[in-house]
């Protein structure tokens, strides 16, 4: 019997099998952000423990960092936010960990900066105290989010104690249609499997449509695996992966690169590997999607209308739909395209990369943000921002009436104080539309960057295919 990609990476990282069903797993790559560093390092200090492998961890400031202009100094939401950023700088400095904080040209969202640095490699085990660590699976790594106690464990031992997950294959057959992105694909997958359909599983995305995705689109896809409850999402490495990685700062160079690439070329699930679960998707059936409810599985193609709870025969789901409609202030039967918005957020570890900004700029070019709408573009990193400026995307956004901001997590989780006001409705390229996620009483609709830009210029949820 062949092995899955997940099993192969797992097996090569077992330090020791414990007496029960758990193993001590070696961690090749650990990423810290300031939202966890403060707690993890204070725990480590209290117990008198040291960082075992500072070379295998990097620190990035993103969660608490404001994205307003920084020329006159950084205006943090409060002293706690400032302290967290100062903590990650000083703790990492003391431990000898490379840190990318405010003031560094690469600073940005940890899940954007890590891959940009070439810190994440195929076949690696990568962890971070953030659920969207699943992003890195796009590079053929086994990457998953962990809690803060576990962050402390990784710092002290460079290992993590884990139990093996079940495996799930999501096979996306055929090609995605023009105007349909990885964001639409993952929202359609979440609609199909639900927000707990992946719980206890590691997902491997396969199929022609996945092979054709760029590295950044694969990151969008893997990023939201956690929204289906999955431990991780991954895509086997291929030429796209190698081309993305080559020459990046932490990636191997010279002969070591050749060795690595030769090894990575064989890093995939065997044809006869058995998965615990397989889901098949017809790529051509995926339309641009938006969420209407309060979890990412409550999503539909933009051409449809708000669902009717009465048509649902499962009581639990019916209650969930009703409570989502109440919170979102929507009526059953209302066309999704008739929903008007107040705010647009283009950014996040899901969709804050250069290709995302290009897609949004293509829609924004020569148009104006609708009256009464506040539209933000928050680049995922300093490098994304620089590249956007080089390509003139900043001018396109600014001329269209968008606010082109500094990098950070910003309104994806609104931990830095950048929030919606109660009742405001936002077209957002982020990953979670939970109640209060973007601020108490705020209403979030998830969608792709092009769809969010389309919503910005029309003032309502819009099928971007009708604009181009």
């Amino acid at each position, binding site marked *: 019997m062949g092995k899955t990609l997940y099993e192969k990476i797992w097996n090569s990282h077992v*330090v020791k099998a414990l007496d029960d*069903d758990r193993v001590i797993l070696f961690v090749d790559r650990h990423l810290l952000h300031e939202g966890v560093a403060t707690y993890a390092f204070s725990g480590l200090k209290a117990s008198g423990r040291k960082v075992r492998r500072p070379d*295998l961890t990097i620190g990035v400031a993103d969660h608490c960092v404001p994205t307003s202009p920084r020329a006159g100094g950084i205006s943090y939401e409060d002293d706690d936010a400032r302290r967290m950023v100062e903590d990650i700088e000083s703790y990492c400095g003391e431990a000898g960990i490379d840190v990318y904080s405010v003031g560094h040209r690469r600073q940005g969202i940890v899940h954007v900066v890590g891959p940009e640095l070439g810190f994440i490699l195929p076949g690696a085990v990568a962890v971070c105290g953030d659920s969207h660590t699943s992003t890195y699976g796009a590079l053929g790594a086994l990457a998953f989010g962990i*809690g803060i106690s576990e962050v402390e464990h990784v710092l002290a031992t460079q290992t993590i104690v884990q139990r093996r997950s079940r495996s799930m294959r999501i096979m996306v057959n055929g090609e995605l249609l023009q105007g349909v992105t990885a964001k639409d694909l993952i929202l359609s997958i979440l609609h199909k499997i639900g927000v707990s359909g992946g*719980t206890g599983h590691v997902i491997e995305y396969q199929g022609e449509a996945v092979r054709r995705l760029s590295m950044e689109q694969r990151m969008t896809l893997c990023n939201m695996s956690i929204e289906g409850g999955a431990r991780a999402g991954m895509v086997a490495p291929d030429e796209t992966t190698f081309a993305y990685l080559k020459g990046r700062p932490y990636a191997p160079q010279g002969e070591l690169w050749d060795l*690595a690439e030769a090894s990575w070329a064989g890093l995939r699930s065997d044809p006869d590997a058995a998965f615990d679960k397989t889901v098949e998707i017809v790529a051509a059936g995926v339309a641009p999607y938006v969420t209407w409810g309060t979890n990412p599985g409550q999503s539909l193609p933009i051409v449809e209308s708000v669902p009717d709870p009465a048509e649902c025969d499962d009581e639990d789901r019916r209650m969930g739909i009703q409570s989502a409609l109440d919170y979102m202030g929507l009526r059953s039967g209302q066309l999704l395209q008739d929903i008007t918005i107040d705010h647009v957020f283009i950014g996040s570890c899901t969709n804050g990369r250069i290709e995302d900004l290009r897609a949004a700029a293509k829609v924004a070019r020569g148009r104006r943000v609708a009256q009464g709408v506040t539209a933000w573009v928050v680049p995922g990193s300093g490098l994304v921002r620089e590249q956007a400026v080089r390509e003139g995307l900043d001018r396109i956004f600014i001329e269209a009436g968008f606010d082109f901001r500094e990098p950070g997590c910003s309104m994806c989780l*609104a931990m830095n104080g950048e929030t919606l006001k109660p009742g405001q409705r936002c077209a957002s390229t982020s990953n979670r539309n939970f109640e209060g*996620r973007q601020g108490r*009483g705020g209403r979030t609709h998830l969608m792709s960057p092009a769809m969010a830009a389309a919503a910005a210029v029309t003032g309502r949820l819009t099928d971007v295919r009708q604009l181009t």
Partner: protein
Amino acid sequence: MEAIKAHSGIAAPLPLSDINTDLIYPQQFLRKPDRATMGEFLFHSLRFLPDGSPNPEFILNREPYDTASILIAGRNLGSGSSREHAPWALKSFGFRCLISPMFADIFKANCINNGIIPATVEEADIVELLKAAENPQEARFSVDLETCEIRHARLGVLRFAINKSDRGRLLQGKDLISDALDEADSIARHERSVSERIPWLDLGSRNLP
């Protein structure tokens, strides 16, 4: 982490599925430094009205549930963000045991690491448990981790599931880090084998002992 073998107390029913960690502990309090007082912000948007006063409708604001130490909830409890503030806040409020038909993976691990029992029960049982807990006169439950049983005056004894190794860790209150540090030799051996087998993953091979 202190060991936990059994727990008795008032159970609060929260008959919702997919309760995410944003709902358990919202983002505006993620910067609070003190884990021990995070219970003040637990379920903040449900517990407090927009003007900051307690919401009299919410279960944890009503007697006897204001002293609850067991939470009974629908499936997929703790989904979403990995924030460990969620179990910290639950523990700070006084919760020692959570009962649900299904827990999200990261949240479950965070609970174990904080000495909170995640007890998984059958979907059919959760309906009965919720119903019993909704009656203030019947809201007292006992949870026995050694026998994996939930005991209740009217419902009798119900079984719950918990992974054997998770159960063992809770019963012993074991610190995972000191156990792993005891394996320093195995870890060092693995590090050496990485630098031979997969040298490109070993950024600091020059520093290895």
